[in-house]
């Protein structure tokens, strides 16, 4: 058993202290990072509760329940900032990266504490896969939201569609890595491949300028 609440306090305090000295984009990123860690903790509580009431095993719950809960939880702060504070598209994208990175970092910390960090190769693979996956899924989701707003489409269907897209991407990753062998290898490569494809598409087709 690990004490996740204690870990989050330990990691968050230095980050909160940095907020005294920094502001602007860096400050927003740190706030989003801390938010991401808190959301990771809350998502773990909810997933654990749903696992116990659904009767699914731990592995099935991680494949079928966790992606839905985690993506919805990551989505909520971005949606909140977009709808309540009417944040600028670039701010939302910065925040999404922060939330994704905070979420992935805290999840990795808890994983390392519970399973050990003696195998460097596996730790590297986990960092490159889970870390990138959380960032890519929330980034793509936020990009879709920003595009919706820039194109003046206040569509709930579009918002829900973007969320469903990120849930499926996450579910596919969890399903692939659940079985050893070639499926795991494909699963670990999936986030990096998605990040590269997304990055190239954005740069090549000027997605950031759409609607501006």
């Amino acid at each position: 058993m690990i004490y996740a609440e204690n870990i989050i306090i330990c990691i968050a305090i230095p980050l909160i202290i940095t907020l005294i000295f920094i502001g602007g984009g860096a400050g927003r990123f740190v706030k989003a990072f801390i938010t991401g860690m808190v959301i990771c903790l809350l998502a773990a509580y909810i997933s654990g509760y749903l696992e116990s009431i659904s009767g699914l095993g731990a592995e099935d719950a991680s494949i079928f329940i966790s992606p839905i809960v985690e993506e919805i939880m990551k989505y909520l702060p971005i949606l909140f900032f977009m709808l309540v504070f009417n944040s600028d598209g670039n701010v939302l994208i910065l925040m999404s990266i922060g939330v994704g990175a905070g979420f992935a970092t805290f999840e990795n910390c808890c994983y390392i504490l519970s399973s050990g960090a003696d195998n460097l190769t596996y730790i590297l693979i986990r960092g490159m896969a889970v870390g990138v996956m959380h960032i890519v899924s929330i980034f793509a989701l936020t990009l879709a939201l920003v595009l919706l707003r820039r194109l003046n489409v206040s569509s709930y269907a579009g918002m829900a569609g973007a969320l469903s897209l990120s849930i499926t991407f996450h579910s596919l990753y969890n399903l692939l890595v659940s079985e050893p062998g070639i499926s795991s290898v494909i699963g670990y490569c999936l986030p990096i491949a998605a990040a590269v494809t997304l990055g190239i598409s954005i740069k090549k087709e000027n997605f950031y300028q759409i609607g501006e």
Partner: protein
Amino acid sequence: MSTVTLVDIIQTSIQIMVLVPVIIMFVRISGRSRNKLLPVFFTFAMISFLLTDLYWIVYNFLRPDTRNPIAANEIAELATLLLLSATLENLIRDKGRFNKLSVTILAYSTVFIGVNIALWIIWSGEWAKDIIFGIPYIYLMYLVSDGIVRTKVMDLKHSLTVLILSLAVLFMLIATIISSGTLYVAATVASFICAYVIFGYTFGKCIGFMTKPDEGVRTVLMAVGAFEWALLITYISDGWMYIVAGVAVTSTIILMCLAYKKEVSEDDLC
């Protein structure tokens, strides 16, 4: 792994081979088109559908012939429908045709898909999932039907024929639940005949509009309608009929690709 599952994997793989070039083409169109919304959201919708297929294949390989408790592929399918709905909202509103709610059409869509949802619940027993996943079908059917009425895609005679045939499909499907023996077989065959007649009609109508200039909106409406109908057919199909319905879905992906391309290029010319 059963033969049907294996053929299903092959059919889904072919669908992926169709989806990949469609996505690449629309990413390029998104970059150069003046109307960004349609190509961008159609691209997202097709990426969602690609994820549906990928998840389905991976699941069938890793856990063949087992029931998927919470199907992520269905969540992606939901994403596809919602993103297509977002494009239709914009398309119809953009043309000044989405001014107020049409209660009659909404009621028809709700009743039609509602009965479908009830049938899905009877077949699968997963009531919560079926209700949640049924809602986007209601919304998309409403948008397509409303668009069809407002743009006068069909005359009254054809509209009534499609309406009666769609209700006949429902009655036949209900009959399959309460009947057995020869009556069951007759009801099943009749329901598929009616369903595929509607599919063929919407498909043919869409191709008809494709060849005419300035018919982009109607072409998109019929293509999305054919796509949704093909998806609904997959839900009433089992075994080899599911494979046939899958082929119908693949054909409508190509149809939607051509329809959206036509609408985007016509919009760029305006």
